[in-house]
């Protein structure tokens, strides 16, 4: 908290003096032999441009993170003016009350879904990297769900899983009996919701993979063909190594995404029947039960986990730059 505010002052005062000096400088004219590069104004101008961006960055990212850490050691309810310091009590409560930590089990469904999603995306990206008829149409269809409004997706799939809804009707076409309450018990509800997440996000991974595959030079395929490599061998030895950085990135996005699922389960079930995720729980603690202190502790834990995952990724894939553009 305090260390971030130290960085805030520099943009303030120099910016003002710079504005004045700049006007003065223009009137007097800069001596022509002195290049702009050495001019003192040059040191101050960047701060003018950075003033607003830095102020917003600090106000809406660093101040909240700092406050959140501070709140997590208090019993604040988010409203009353007084709060008292309770040390690590919130963290102790988080670890010792099993129902608070159990929500992480729900993430496992989404983690499994991410694996399916990445595999499917890889498969379709490989397929469509070859010349197929209607390639752009298929590409568009596969990607489009990623662009759809989350609330609309929630309703589309509420109807999909409803008793007598889309899924039951499709199943009865194939003679399979309906009547299963898809969102009725925790296991099937979480599987269904994780399925929605696959439906929604496969398109993004697919487009990322496809872009990466297409940036592999065409001569490499020709060489492989000449060497008699099969499609599978090409995939295994040419495509996968070529797009490894993007796969690594997708895995990280998938892990942090699985831990911070909110929208789809919140819209579809509101966290009922065992579908509550960590973020839904945090939001409820903070905004329904006014337990800002405890909710902050939850958020800090989640932040630490996500930072740890990112750090591990950086260690595992050092220097591998993801560069698609």
């Amino acid at each position, binding site marked *: 908290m305090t260390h971030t505010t130290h*960085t805030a002052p520099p943009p303030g005062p120099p910016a003002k003096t710079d504005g004045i000096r*700049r006007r003065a400088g*223009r009137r007097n004219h800069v001596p022509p032999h002195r290049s*702009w590069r050495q001019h003192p104004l*040059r040191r101050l101008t*960047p701060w003018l*441009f950075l003033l607003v*961006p*830095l102020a*917003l*960055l600090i106000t*809406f*990212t660093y101040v909240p*993170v700092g*406050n*959140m850490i501070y709140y997590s050691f208090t019993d604040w309810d*988010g409203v009353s003016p007084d709060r008292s310091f309770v040390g690590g009590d919130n963290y102790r409560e988080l670890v010792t009350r099993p129902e608070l930590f159990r929500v992480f089990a729900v993430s496992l469904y989404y983690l499994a879904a991410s694996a399916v999603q990445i595999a*499917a995306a890889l*498969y379709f990206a490989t*397929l469509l990297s*070859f010349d*197929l008829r209607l390639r752009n149409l*298929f*590409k*568009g*269809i*596969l*990607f*489009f*769900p990623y*662009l*759809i*409004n*989350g*609330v*609309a997706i929630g*309703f*589309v799939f509420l*109807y999909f899983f409803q008793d*007598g809804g*889309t899924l*039951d*009707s*499709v199943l*009865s076409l194939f003679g399979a009996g309906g009547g299963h309450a898809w969102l009725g018990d925790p296991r099937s509800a979480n599987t269904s919701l994780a399925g929605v997440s696959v*439906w929604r996000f496969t398109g993004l991974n697919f*487009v*990322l993979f496809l872009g990466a595959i297409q940036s592999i030079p065409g001569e490499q395929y020709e060489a492989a063909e000449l060497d*008699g490599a099969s*499609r599978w061998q090409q995939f295994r030895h040419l495509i996968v190594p070529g797009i490894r950085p*993007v796969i690594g*990135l997708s895995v990280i*996005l998938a892990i942090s995404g699985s831990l911070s699922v909110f*929208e789809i389960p919140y*819209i579809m079930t509101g966290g009922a029947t065992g579908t509550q995720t960590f973020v839904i729980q945090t*939001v409820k603690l903070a905004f329904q039960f006014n337990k800002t202190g405890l909710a902050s502790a939850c*958020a800090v834990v989640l932040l630490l986990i996500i930072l740890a995952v990112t750090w591990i990724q950086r260690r595992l894939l050092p220097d591998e730059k*993801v*560069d698609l*553009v």
Partner: protein
Amino acid sequence: MTLTAPASRTATRRSRVTAGTVLAYVSLVAASLVVLVPLLVILLTSLKTSREMADGSGALTLPHDWLNLSNYATAFTDGHMLTALGNTAFILLFSITGTVLIGSMTAYAIDRFEFRLKKPVMALFLVATLVPGVTTQVATFQVVNSFGLIDTRWAPILLYMGTDIVSIYIFLQFIRGIPTSLDEAARLDGANSFTIYRRIILPMLKPAIATVVIIKGITTYNDFYIPFLYMPSEDLGTISTALFRFKGPFGAHWEDISAGAVLVILPTLIVFLFLQRYIYNGFAQGATK
């Protein structure tokens, strides 16, 4: 797929390709059906009358009247979609303009100037990408609250503007490709830094601006979490939160809810059809930063 006793190498290849191609198309068509069927069923449902919905004929039956738009009228008026559209447009306009200005100014300052603390400033932006927005809302809410902005449209506008580091990266990447000789030439003609930013950098950044506008536009249009938290009033609904509120009053009236969902999806579909190329590139760029 299982081919036996190939006579020659070329024969194997040709037949494997055809079998493989069939399988490829089968899987692509299957995947397309998985994507499209849930959406098409919603479209069908939106055209049915409440009586058709009640007769228990199932979700896959076709509506009697393909031009029955009464559910759309209900969704549009009773669902307060017009207000929502206005609010979303207002937020889009300001947050996108703000994002473009902030992102390009930051990129200009970082790429074109040498100054002390440049490294720490870059690190500040870099580290911020690691902080997922969902986790910090508990405390961000209090910051927004202290400005007295809860339940105003300025709360989401400021948050969308202030926490978008992805577009800063898109601008930064693009600005590196603009030759500095242009700046130098303008500088010799007596232009100051602001004029250079305004007259040279900003126009040259057009393709990057297009990318940012598209990504930012779609993600803002689709965002649910921030308007839901910061604008609880009914008359401050955005497209997402207004649709979310269908859940209560329309109860089990799936024909109305479906019409609402179609109304929300339609603009996205139109934008996607017209701007496909930009959208693919934009989201690929955005996700890899």
